[in-house]
């Protein structure tokens, strides 16, 4: 039982924090007001791989357009893959994979909400992926670059890849 004022304040603080953590699991609409202030990740959300688990791999491909209007072939951005059992101890690339996956999910979310294309092109997810793709294998002759997101299913990739999204061409210099 709290015995001093400090104890009481800390008890209240931890209790409120825990209650907010519970509410955060449901993410009610009114709670977005509080969530927007949580830039430090104080309110956890514990819905790992649920209710609808991700079960595909995302691939980013790009092509360059040159001054004469011609385009290169599509090429795939090398996204690091997991290093087998080593990853159970050492897995730095999980951040890269998770960040790309988060950004693609953000983009898909906007697509399902049927947002205006202009709103889409200014979204954080779009700019995040554009910045990443623009920096890959720079070609000094290229004037602009377009990227696309492709989804594959299964380790054997027996199914035809699905095209999720194609960007505009963007100047890369």
């Amino acid at each position, binding site marked *: 039982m709290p015995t001093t004022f400090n104890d009481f304040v800390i008890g209240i603080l931890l209790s409120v924090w825990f209650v907010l953590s519970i509410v955060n699991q449901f993410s009610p609409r009114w709670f977005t007001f509080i969530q927007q202030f949580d830039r430090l990740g104080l309110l956890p959300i514990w819905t790992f791989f649920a209710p609808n688990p991700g079960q595909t791999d995302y691939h980013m491909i790009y092509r360059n357009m040159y001054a004469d209007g011609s385009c290169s072939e599509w090429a795939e951005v090398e996204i690091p*893959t997991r290093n087998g059992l080593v990853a159970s101890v050492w897995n730095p690339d999980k951040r890269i994979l998770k960040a*790309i996956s988060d950004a693609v999910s953000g983009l898909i979310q906007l697509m399902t909400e049927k947002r205006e294309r202009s709103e889409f092109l200014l979204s954080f997810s779009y700019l995040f992926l554009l910045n*990443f793709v623009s920096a890959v294998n720079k070609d000094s002759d290229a004037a602009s670059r377009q990227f696309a997101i492709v989804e594959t299913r299964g380790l054997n990739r027996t199914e035809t890849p699905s095209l999720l999204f194609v960007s505009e061409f963007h100047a890369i210099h």
Partner: protein
Amino acid sequence: MATAELVQMYRLIIDIAAVGLVIDTFETLSILKAFNRDGLFSWQVVSLRIGAISLARTISRPLDVLAAPGTVRAICFARLVALGLILLSSPTTWLSYLCALVICFSLFFSTWRRLLGDDGSDQMNVLIFATASICTWPGTTGSVLEMGLWFIALQCCLSYFAAGIAKLLGSQWRSGAALPAIWDNYSYGIEAVVTVLKRSKLLGFVLCWSVILFEILFPLCLFSGFRVCLAFLFTGAVFHLSCAVIMGLNSFLWAFLATYPAVFFVWRIIHAQ
């Protein structure tokens, strides 16, 4: 419970979490170029979301410096020093407390600076070191130490329970298709496991329901007998070890195991009455 025992509990929690964070920090250092201007976590893009670009120049300029790759590296090194010292010191000493604060703020910084790419282990580490920063200052009282342990234990129970309920709501989890599907990709899969699962749909079903039931029932370990409580904690450890081996979720193992001493502490409190 005697204060010395409470301190010992914090020591266990902090030590386990610190091992995971040492690995995590070296992992961040190994991908430091991702924080460059043309990297994945480029500040020029991340700042758009944070809103720093709309701030007055007098404010956004220091933020640019704070977010620079050099600062990220410096904060990683500061965190490594703090982790080393906290492993050598005892909770509720000034040294340990200051280290907990440094680690806590470095975790806040990482979440703020990356914006994307965080996972559940980062959330748990924040909860653990924020609790240590709130509750383990020198001269703290036994009741504050106890409240911190209750908080960590309840967050651990909430994490499993919420994850279990979310899975129960997913049709793929209920049908047993979820785990084979999650593991059948390059991000979280291993071919050998997928091959076995493809041969037996029943195995997939059993695994999915094992995870759902374990997660939903986990909070009951606080009220169960000693052996059942230990069985839950042991199952949890095996679960996280499997996730590390099969899915590469290495940081979850340390972050979640770190909360188990707090769960055991609460079990002891409940059963002492």
